């Protein structure tokens, strides 16, 4: 707890802290191995900047969703409504943009629409999250039920708003800004993800909110007896999750230049997979941001690597993702507690 704010000494210390967590260190090792394998087997793709740009455009969508889900899982809850929130907010803000800057309006109207859309979408996401938080904290419905219900609800609102059709024809300024590449290389959506991750890092490590969140997720009774505001913390956490879902919605709106009620339907489980692979305990109280970020990158690299083998069908993707998850679990167990040997012994006895 003597971390200073001097960047030079800061970076290595952060890195050391991150790697001290054995799970995170193992994920980093997995990533490294994967990159080496990629480089050896597919140097041509590996060395091409396009490969990396393609990845950088893809993962922010589900990465941002995973960041939100992570917050709720640290609390011991879950948010299954993120995809619904993302689509609903994207549709609503796309419609707002079309109102402000219908096709053919000037660029000032376009930029105004852009700003309004971003603000509106984030507010709407936070409101959606607040509804989740309220139902979890005050009505005391289990989070899994609440967010399954609101997933349907938000998706439904998106459907009704859009009549089931894609909302497209965004003002070009939206694509211009959100699709831009900073310094010619770094996609804007990646920047958004990085900002999101840094924000969470700050929240979790540099604000009282983060500490309280971990405490509440770890032992709710103790946290309440310590004077923490349970309801407010839960509501704020789900609001943040909604906020991140909304930003994922904005990224999807940029990537597809349209919004629709059923985009990204596979992202719910993917986000949970990432969070869990990243080392967050679903029972709450533990987990590190670094794990999530690494898990996102590992899955993205795996998936892009897989796509470079035309002969390997995309259908192996879940097999490989699931395999990596199980592998990490087993390895964690193995050098953590020596349980692998116990498992083998037990298996011997049973047969």
């Amino acid at each position, binding site marked *: 707890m003597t971390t200073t704010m001097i960047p030079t000494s800061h970076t290595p210390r952060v890195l050391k802290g991150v790697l001290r967590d054995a799970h995170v260190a193992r994920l980093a090792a997995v990533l490294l191995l994967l990159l080496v394998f990629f480089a050896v087997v597919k140097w041509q793709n590996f060395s091409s900047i396009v490969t990396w740009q393609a990845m950088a455009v893809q993962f922010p969508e589900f990465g941002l969703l995973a960041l939100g889900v992570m917050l709720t899982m640290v609390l011991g809850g879950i948010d*299954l409504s993120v995809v619904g929130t993302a689509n609903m907010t994207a549709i609503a803000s796309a419609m707002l943009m079309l109102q402000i800057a219908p096709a053919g309006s000037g660029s000032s109207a376009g930029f105004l629409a852009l700003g309004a859309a971003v603000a509106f979408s984030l507010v709407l996401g936070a409101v959606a999250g607040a509804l989740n938080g309220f*139902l979890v904290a005050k*009505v*005391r*419905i*289990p989070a*899994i*039920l*609440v967010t*399954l*219900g*609101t*997933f*349907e*609800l*938000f*998706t*439904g*609102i998106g*459907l*009704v708003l859009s*009549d*089931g059709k894609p909302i497209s024809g965004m003002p070009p300024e939206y694509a211009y800004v959100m699709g831009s590449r900073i310094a010619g290389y770094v996609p804007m959506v990646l920047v958004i993800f990085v900002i999101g991750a840094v924000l969470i890092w700050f929240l979790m490590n540099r604000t009282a909110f983060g500490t309280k969140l971990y405490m509440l997720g770890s032992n*709710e*009774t103790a946290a*309440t*007896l310590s004077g923490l505001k349970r309801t407010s913390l839960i509501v704020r956490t789900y609001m943040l999750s909604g906020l991140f879902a909304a930003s994922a919605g904005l990224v999807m709106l940029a990537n597809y230049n349209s919004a629709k009620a059923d985009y990204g339907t596979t992202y*719910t*489980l993917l986000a*949970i*997979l990432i969070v*869990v692979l990243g080392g967050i*305990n*679903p*029972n709450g109280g533990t987990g590190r941001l670094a794990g999530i970020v690494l898990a996102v990158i590992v899955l993205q690299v795996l998936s892009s690597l897989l796509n470079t083998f035309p002969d*390997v*069908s995309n*259908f*192996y*993707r*879940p*097999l*490989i*993702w*699931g*395999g990596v*998850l*199980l592998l990490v*679990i*087993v390895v*964690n*167990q193995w050098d953590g507690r020596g*349980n692998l040997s*116990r*498992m083998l012994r*037990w*298996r011997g006895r*049973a047969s």
Partner: protein
Amino acid sequence: MNVRVAARKVVRQNEFYILLVIVALSMAIQMRSGLFFTANNLVDLAGAMVVPGIFAVGTFMVLVSGGIDVSFPALASLAVYATTRILVDAGWQGGLWLPLLLVVGIAAVLGAFNGLFTASIAIPVLIITLGTANVFTGFMQGALSSVQIPNIPQAMAEFGRASLFVTENPQTGHLARLPVAFLLLVLIVALAFVVMRFTTFGRSIYAIGGDESSAARAGVNVRRTKFLLYVIAGVLAGIAGLVRTSMMGQMHPTNLLGMELMVIAAVVLGGAAITGGRGTLTGAMLGTLLIVIVQNSMILLGIPTIWQSIALGVLILVGTGISAVQITRSRRGQGALLS
């Protein structure tokens, strides 16, 4: 006096509120459409209950033990796909016993795969089954390059079409049939009830869900019990998958995927604690029934297609909300100091 005690006990239970919600919803549908309490509709609902019902039994058992299994649709799909593929390729013309045996066998092996991990690694089951679910799906789609199988073995198709009885709407002459598979659901629920209530294995599942280390100290072989539990859950899922495929008359490999969250929600809605140890089979079935009714009454209620998601969401929230509020209220009277 005793009646009052009993009544108070009932009122404290989740099942009671779910039942109330179901009754209220049925009334609403009846008033709106006049069609809820028709023989045909009830039979249709019973038919629609079969597959989610069987899934719910397995899910319930796992939840009681303190785990959350999200792999069962993938497991069922893989087991049934492999079975159907094998039998269709071999041109199987015989009876249902072989498909059943194959599905049960494969599902048991896949369940054992889950069981091996969950029994030996102290990590939340949700995480493990998230991994195995992906492995199962990936194996089916990748290694078996699954595609839809339009013509399933004769015996399965016949089983899917067989009905216990047929009801007729006197006005329209429309028929509704109760599939034989409904008997299977009844049988499985009855069996599960006996297992959970009257066997050491079943009570061990409750004990493990309540406090795993206490169970170990009491002499429960926790690993063997868990292992067996996941094998059973796998077999139940496989059977449910077989029923679905037989009833549809086609094998569609990805049809079941994505059902897990709804089934878990249904069981939790029925009062099973997500932290394990608590819940009743009655509750699980009522929860499933509620969800099935909601999903199967949209048109009767005249809700436009595009509004159906909203209606489903609101109903889930209202249904769970009512019972959550009531439970909190009745517990508060009991003098829980905190929370």
